[in-house]
């Protein structure tokens, strides 16, 4: 049920945003502010996740409930005058004289208005639909009006009844979910009858369904006391508020490294030979990044990634001798008329050259930290990113040509040439982000990493570093929407 509601809420929000724009539609919190992990992952991961989620959710719930109580009380005091003023002008016959709702709290800032209507009836209609959570723009006053529903205790309900006792005639307390849903639909029908303009505005089936679903969602939420209410703070001086969302990106990337070598004291012939013996190949990077949106456009990302650069090392050994055991049968004549068959095992030796091919691997673990700017609509976004990549550890495996033109192995243990930490690199990328569902985005991110330090140590007769280009492909998940 929770999952279904969550899906409906997302659909509603999407449809609402299509109709009214993003800022007019409320954010609907229909799930805990915790990151769900799949149940069939490792038991330890699941337990740890549940513990963390439980602790965090419990803390958040308690904190939010306390805040709601304070905010509700304050808002009732502040807004009672406005509501009362509006109530005087309301045509109460259309919506019933008595408000018997147990859980209704209205938070109204400055002027209560609804849509483009300028009549008092419309204000009453707003009050009559307090079971909806709508953020609409008052076109007359150009003010933002927030009407929200919250779960409150009895004391709050009493206050609400005092302040907005004539707002709703519908009793929703102790009703089942179906009844609540039906009640919401009835409210909607009554609303559309009273307010023709709104009816015209919502004349499409899609939007009707949207509001119906909104009602359903809110009624369900009203009964689900484990889910906290929704508080969305208004913008301050037209600026968007600090984004509390988190996200995670999981990605993998095919890479290609550009090798840069500068000579220190090595013979040029050696560097030429080394260069001709090494060929970079397709490599890869995989990792994850946590995303902290700073606002609607700026993102801060930090994560953990594993990279492996592949290099084909081919060298030619001259004057190699290959031996092959051969068995030869011969007919020999010991004397006239005395012939015997002799089988002989010998070794055929061939001289030539051998080409040894070794696949070298340069591996590293890094922490990328980037700042991104993204723009576009909800379905498709573009972004640019820049930042740094801190290397945690690097290690190598394969063979390398030494100055005597002999192939020598290098591995994690015996590596006198390369550093185990290549330091910091600069990172820049562009990204294309496509929504594939409400919480999941597919992104493509061509990037380039410029390493600032050489990977060779001071004993090396040359400097070498890699600059890496790649195309990250991954999924971005919104964690707490």
């Amino acid at each position, binding site marked *: 049920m929770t999952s279904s509601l969550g899906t409906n809420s997302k659909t509603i929000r999407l449809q609402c945003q299509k109709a009214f724009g993003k800022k007019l539609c409320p954010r609907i919190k229909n799930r805990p502010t915790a990151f*769900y992990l*799949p149940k069939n992952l490792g038991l330890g991961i699941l337990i740890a996740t549940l513990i963390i989620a439980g602790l965090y959710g419990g803390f958040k719930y308690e904190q939010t409930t306390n805040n709601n109580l304070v905010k509700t009380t304050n808002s009732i005091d502040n807004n009672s005058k406005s509501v009362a003023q509006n109530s005087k002008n309301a045509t109460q016959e259309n919506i019933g004289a008595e408000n018997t709702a147990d859980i209704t709290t209205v938070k109204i800032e400055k002027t209560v208005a609804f849509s483009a209507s300028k009549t008092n009836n419309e204000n009453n209609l707003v009050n009559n639909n307090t079971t909806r959570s709508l953020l609409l723009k008052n076109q007359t006053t150009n003010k933002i009006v927030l009407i929200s529903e919250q779960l409150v205790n009895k004391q709050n309900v009493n206050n609400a009844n005092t302040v907005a006792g004539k707002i709703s005639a519908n009793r929703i307390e102790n009703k089942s979910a179906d009844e609540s849903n039906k009640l919401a639909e009835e409210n909607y029908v009554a609303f559309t009858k009273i307010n023709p303009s709104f009816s015209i505005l919502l004349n499409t089936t899609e939007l009707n369904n949207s509001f119906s679903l909104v009602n359903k969602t809110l009624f369900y939420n009203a009964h689900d006391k484990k889910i906290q209410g929704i508080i969305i703070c208004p913008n301050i001086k037209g600026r968007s508020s600090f984004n509390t969302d988190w996200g995670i990106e999981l990605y993998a990337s095919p890479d290609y490294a550009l090798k840069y070598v500068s000579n220190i004291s090595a013979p040029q012939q050696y560097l030429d030979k080394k260069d001709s013996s090494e060929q970079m190949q397709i490599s*890869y990077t995989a990792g994850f990044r946590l995303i902290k949106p700073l606002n609607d456009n700026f993102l801060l990302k930090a994560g953990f990634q594993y990279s492996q650069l592949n290099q084909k090392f081919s060298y030619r050994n001259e004057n190699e001798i290959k031996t092959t055991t*051969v068995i030869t049968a*011969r007919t020999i004549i*010991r004397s006239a008329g005395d012939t015997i068959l002799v089988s002989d095992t010998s*070794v*055929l030796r*061939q001289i030539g050259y051998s080409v040894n*091919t070794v696949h070298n691997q340069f591996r590293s673990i890094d922490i990328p930290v980037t700042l991104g700017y993204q723009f576009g609509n909800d379905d498709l976004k573009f972004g640019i990113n820049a930042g740094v990549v801190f290397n945690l550890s690097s290690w190598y495996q394969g063979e390398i040509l030494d100055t005597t033109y002999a192939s020598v192995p290098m591995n994690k243990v015996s590596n006198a040439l390369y550093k185990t930490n290549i330091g910091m690199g600069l990172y820049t990328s562009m990204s294309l982000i496509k929504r594939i569902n409400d919480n999941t985005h597919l992104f493509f991110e061509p990037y380039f990493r410029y390493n600032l330090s050489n990977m060779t140590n001071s004993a090396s007769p040359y400097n070498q570093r890699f600059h890496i280009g790649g195309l990250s492909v991954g999924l971005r998940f919104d964690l707490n929407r």
Partner: protein
Amino acid sequence: MNKNIQIFCATILLLLSACTKELSTNTNTFTPYQGNAFNDTTWIKNITGISPITALADTLAQNTLFTDSIDLWKDKAIVFGDSLEVDFKGGSCTNNAGALQDGKARIDIIRLQKKGDFIKAYRPNTSYMYLLETGSAFFIRITKNGSELALSPGASIKIKYADIEEAEDNMQLFYGKESLPFPTSTFDPANTWVRSLDTSWIKTWSTQTNSGIKKGYELEAKNLRWISAHRALDPNPAKTNIYAILPPNFTNKNTAVFAVFDHNRTVIDMHGEYASRSFTTSNIPLKTKLLLVSISKFGPDLYLGTRLVNDVGTMVNYSFTPEKKSLAQILAFLNSL
């Protein structure tokens, strides 16, 4: 979303687990050099002058050359140390047209004493198919203005020398028969020793010197070039063919194989037999103790192989693998035979 996260987490774990694996794979491809003599394993039916074995023979021709000048019209005793004396009679040399020559001329003498000398000169001790035992051999050439001269009919040259072994009484004079005149080519597979028409025994001599008693031969040759003292090995024992079998790289184009007798100063050439891809010779007495010696040339590289045979007849095919040696090593080995 959970499913997507699950898939990605599994992918990441898979990638991270790959860190511990040794993914470096090596491949080694071998390509033989084209045209390299070492890789040529083909045999040929007829040895040609461009075969490596001709170059091998020239390379091994490192016998000591004695040189002096003579007056063609005067007698001269040419003495090389205390073991060789050549008595030249004046007025005994003619040119190709048969005319007597006078004036200054050059005389070159190569002396073959040890078994290894015969290998170096590629002069095995055989007369056609019969085995011989040598009492030393000489190559004597007189040239005037670059033209080689010959002894006039009836004239002779006397060679008195001390031998390295006890002088035998039944040595006979032999002349070398050549198909490719030395030194144009050292390698002459058709060369053989032909007994002189004078079948008398070669004279022997002995004399007391400060270092002891010296013994030797004194022969009188009526022809120049290859001259030797030989005798036939006992023709009566039972004989057999023997075969030297070498690895496929060693063919009749690049390898010469000799059978060096242990108890006789006899060296036999084992020719390459195309049919059996082996080196063989015939008429080897049973029970003979001998040493098979192969010398090969692959470009600048020389190979030496040996196989000691203590008792010919128990086996007749002998396999051995030559090893790469330097020219000095090979010459030192041959000189030790």
